[in-house]
């Protein structure tokens, strides 16, 4: 089986990285190669990392309330850079009402607080295809 590479990114000034790190560790233990950006990434930096690291998926953790801006920007920039086919997923404190508009804009999966890790894993595998 091919070893998937996933980028886990933390955008903006927010320091809440517990979720991002748990997901990174969990995906690594589940056989993925994980590239973790660390904190304080701009959407441009996230997309650049996705390109340089040739990842199969991009995961973004947002607990700052900036999810509408961040996900929209990343998806748009990825299209502009010609890597629009790489699936984008994410999680954090994202109110349910904000999820459908983001999915329409091209985000492939958004996980709310309390989603079981196995469910996240299955979904990531599915969107990578």
């Amino acid at each position: 089986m091919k070893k998937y590479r996933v980028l886990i990114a933390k955008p903006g000034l927010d320091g809440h990285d517990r979720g991002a790190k748990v997901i990174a560790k969990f995906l690594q233990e589940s056989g993925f190669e994980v590239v973790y950006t660390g904190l304080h990434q701009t959407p441009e930096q996230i997309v650049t990392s996705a390109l340089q690291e040739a990842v199969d998926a991009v995961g973004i953790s947002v607990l700052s309330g900036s999810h509408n801006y961040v996900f929209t920007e990343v998806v748009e920039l990825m299209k502009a850079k010609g890597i629009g086919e790489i699936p984008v997923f994410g999680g954090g404190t994202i109110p349910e009402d904000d999820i459908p508009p983001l999915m329409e804009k091209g985000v492939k999966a958004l996980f709310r607080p309390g989603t079981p890790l196995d469910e996240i894993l299955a979904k990531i595998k599915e969107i990578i295809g």
Partner: protein
Amino acid sequence: MKRDQLKQKSAAWESETEAGLKKRPERKEEFQSLSGLDIKRLYTPTDLPDFDYEKNLGFPGEYPFTRGVQSTMYRGRFWTMRQFSGFGSAEETNQRYKYLLANGQTGLSVAFHFPTLKGVNSDHQLARGEVGKCGVAIDSLRDMEILFDGIPLDKVTTSMTVNHPAPALLAMYLTVAEKQGVSWDKVGGTIQNDPLKEFFAQKSYIWPPRESVKLLVDTMEFCAKNVPQWHPVSISGYHIREAGSTAQQELAFTLADGIAYVEAAIERGMDVDSFAPHLSFFFDAHMDFFEEIAKFRAARRLWAKIMKERFGAKNPKSMWLRFHTQTAGCSLTAQQPLNNIVRTGYEALSAVLGGTQSLHTNSFDEAEALPTEEAVTVALRTQQILANETGVANTIDPLAGSYHVEALTDAMEQAAVEYIQKIDDLGGMVAAVDAGYPQSEIMRASMEYQKSVETGEEVIVGVNKYIAEKESPIPLLKVDDEVERRQIERIEDTKLNRDNAKVDACLDRIRDTARSGDNLMEPILEAVREYALLGEICQSIVAVYGAYEDPAVF
């Protein structure tokens, strides 16, 4: 009954009970607290073999302060009900403060948005989408004047949750007081200003560890001389716990941070009894009820011992561990959000039985957003019901003498002592942070916790058990994206309406002072009075101290 007799009887009862387990097994083979402490079937006096009332507990207001720091505790007055609050613009948050004060809240607590916490202006590239979202946007004295408009600063005490940029926010607050005609000796409150836990817990750091501790000591020195009622630091375990630590780690790392600050202040030449009475603490109240109570009691006892034995403090107030508590944000669930009211109620009860000085109760909608006015009212009412209706505030430290609670308090203290020894061996907390020690301990604990939730070993109602087929949505607070645009406009306007030559001179003085190593508080105050922006002040310091970057390990 003699001790030996009791021991025999106790052993006989255990083996008899064990024998009956074949027929009637218990729910689990092993029982553990949320943080992994073994919990026995029954506690008796045999679990407290060295129990000495005066040595272990003493009287409230007396060493080692296990039972509380004041002699009357809540019979004198209730804890301060202090809801952490801030969103959108200074105008909106000012309205929320007035609402909370009108509804019986007794102290203010400011939540700043991320750009303020990180010492950049609202027009910074990384601030996009975050302005006013997780707290109130404060870019300069001008926002601070609006934030406290109509709130007399000699009548309320204010807690400000801000760390590396804390000296600048304190300077803004003191300048607002000046403008209100309130002298600094009448101003009371707290800045969190606890820089070290930023590197391994909250992650809102700006400059490196050593420099951040230097700046903390500047504020301690300044407040001791000029703002006698101010608490210049709130040594915080809350964020450590929220980042995924156990209760033992929360306690140990918090006190180890405190030790680092006391050492740094003594090294500056300050007398321990001149500053230690102004130190304050901040803990999390998580779901495991008795474990949390034990943590609060152990914290008081252990800190008193550290101050007396390790630092030779003479003033009993230097040995006081006074603390604020917030119920655990990370225990809230997005699923069946009304259940969070119940969780918060139990957590608040543990904080009160643990003897907290002030309390924030989370709102039921906070797993998803900042609270609505309705949700925050329920949270405040939770405290008011606890204080006024349940009777738990009528006597001091009511769980003292419980075999279970005393044994847990001892276990909690012992675990913390071992961690602190390990940190001492590494060369203290600054060196431990450099070595990534608390970071990796927290990572390990949060991973273990998550796995126990996944297996169902740790039950979270509504999440991995008793899941609802269909959930009814609750209304959530939305912060308008317009706040960002207006805040950026206000920055432009502030720059046009100030004496920019004076501001530049103030920023030069900040850089010069940072280079010389002198106390930075006066130059920061000068810059604030000239409406220098927070980002300008902090980045002037970064120019000398350098910036700390996330090592990005997991």
